[in-house]
């Protein structure tokens, strides 16, 4: 399959700060998830693709054309920025129609496209309200409306699900998946693995400006499984709970918390531990007060991968 977006030895600095470091990557049709903690370089990569930034070293092309300063490239790209910024004194309708002017459409076509895009994101009823008065979720949706209004075949979505309620997230995920079905290319960033997982199985892991790994979700899951997870369980009898797990080979280490009520478990197989824990607490009649995973976040996994 031909690469729609191709980066070759792409690097970008902000003064002395490295934004992106020697990234070579090919993105094909379908949905690709760009996963990384905040400040990993996801937004920088997206800004380079959408021509907002000039590469310091290397190149980035969209359908074979360099992205920097080529307006023709932008005709087919829809970009949803991460920042919650707008022309605040306009209505949702004015915002979307105003930006559609830059595509050379007739007035009638602008109105039709804006109406369609706002309908897709369920903002038809609120289209005449000032954006200033929109809720966070509505602002996120109107941002998505301007992204799709010109019917682009490449969508670059920087943290599109942030700020949306569960229902809004589900709807947007369905929408993005529909774009994939239409043969379009979607690059979507997030720092939340389940969000990416809900969208695609094709993932690129990015951290500190470098591509750490790329592959499908099971591959990434394997990498994550290789990293021992800390799980903290506060219960009525942590010692009885620990006794049940002593023989479990997936448990790497167990310690007791200073409060005498907490058991901290280190395991490589988090999911297996959780499924066994349910049975154990029922069997032994142990009252579990709280379960938390102090290091169960992407940042910890990334740090582990970087340090590997």
């Amino acid at each position, binding site marked *: 399959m031909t690469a729609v977006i191709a980066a070759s030895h792409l690097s970008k600095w902000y003064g002395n700060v490295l934004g992106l470091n020697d990234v070579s990557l090919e993105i094909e049709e379908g949905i690709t998830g760009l996963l990384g903690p905040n400040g990993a370089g996801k937004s920088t990569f997206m800004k380079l693709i959408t021509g907002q930034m000039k590469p310091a070293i290397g190149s980035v092309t969209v359908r074979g054309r360099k992205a920097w*300063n080529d307006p023709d490239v932008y005709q087919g790209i829809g970009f949803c*920025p991460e920042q919650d910024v707008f022309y605040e004194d306009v209505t949702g309708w004015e915002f979307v129609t105003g930006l559609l002017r830059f595509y050379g459409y007739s007035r009638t076509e602008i109105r039709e496209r804006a109406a369609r895009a706002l309908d897709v994101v369920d903002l038809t009823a609120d289209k005449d309200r000032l954006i200033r008065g929109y809720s966070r979720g509505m602002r996120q949706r109107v941002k998505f409306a*301007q992204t799709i209004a010109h019917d682009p075949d490449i969508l670059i979505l920087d943290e599109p699900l942030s700020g949306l309620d569960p229902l809004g997230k589900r709807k947007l995920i369905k929408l993005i998946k529909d774009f994939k079905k239409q043969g379009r290319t979607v690059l979507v960033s997030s720092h939340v693995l389940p969000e990416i997982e809900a969208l695609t199985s094709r993932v690129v892991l990015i951290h500190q400006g470098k591509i750490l790994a790329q592959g499908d979700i099971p591959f990434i899951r394997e990498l994550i499984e290789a990293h021992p997870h800390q799980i903290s369980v506060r219960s009525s009898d942590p010692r009885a709970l620990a006794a049940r797990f002593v023989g479990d080979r997936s448990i790497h280490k167990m310690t007791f918390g200073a409060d005498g009520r907490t058991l901290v478990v280190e395991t490589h197989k988090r999911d297996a531990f959780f499924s066994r824990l349910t049975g154990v607490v029922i069997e032994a009649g142990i009252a579990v007060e709280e379960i938390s995973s102090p290091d169960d976040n992407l940042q910890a996994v990334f740090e582990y991968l970087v340090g590997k």
Partner: protein
Amino acid sequence: MTGANAVRQVFGFFSFLGRKTGKTRVFAILGLIPVALAVIVRIVLHGRGGLMAAVFTEILMVFFLQFYIVILALFYGTSVTAEEIENRTLTYLITRPIPKPAIILGKSAAYAVLMFAMVGVSLALSYFIMNAARLSDPDLYGTFFRYLGVLGLGILAYTAFFTFLGAVLKRAIIVGMIFGFGWENVIQYFPGSTQKLSIVHYLKSLLPYHPPSVGGGGGRGVALLLFRLEPTTPLAAILILAAVTAGLLALACWLFRVKEYLYED
């Protein structure tokens, strides 16, 4: 989309946005100052038409020429680039299939028209209030359109300068204030060719000149406010102002095209 069409679309977009901002409301209110002054002068100097015209030229034109159009152009011109960066809305513009220079040209043109409308309304009201007794005099209208033309040229030249400044500097407004209210106010009174390094010199060269004797003794003192040392000929002044406007806008467009604008974090 062609460059001209892109400029037209940007112009339309920012003509609309410009009208809705709080900044426009504030500056429109500022334009009521000369109108209020005109009403006061009209009441105080009722029946002394000649003196009134001189007072208008010498005082109110100073307000328009050396304050109102400068401050308007400073805030609107620098904001062509700066407000997009500060508000982080530049993303919405530069990811569209339009040439970057079209953003500069279309937006600065939209703001120039907006400023011209504010200045025009303010000038017309104050001028005709003061000269209400001479409304049948055809010369009155000739002078009015001359004032309007000079202020229009001033708006264009200053807007181009401040647009350029905004494209170059992050904190263009401070440098712009030093230029607009420092350099321009001082350098114009330098003898020889130094005064020609100010925009206001060429604008003043285009104004009808009322020697201090006009309007009797009362006009003598206020004439100093529009004091001209060695005026440039009108044709040369117009050509220089046009060249300054075109040159600075071209530079701003070029810079905006090649420069990368980063947000503050």
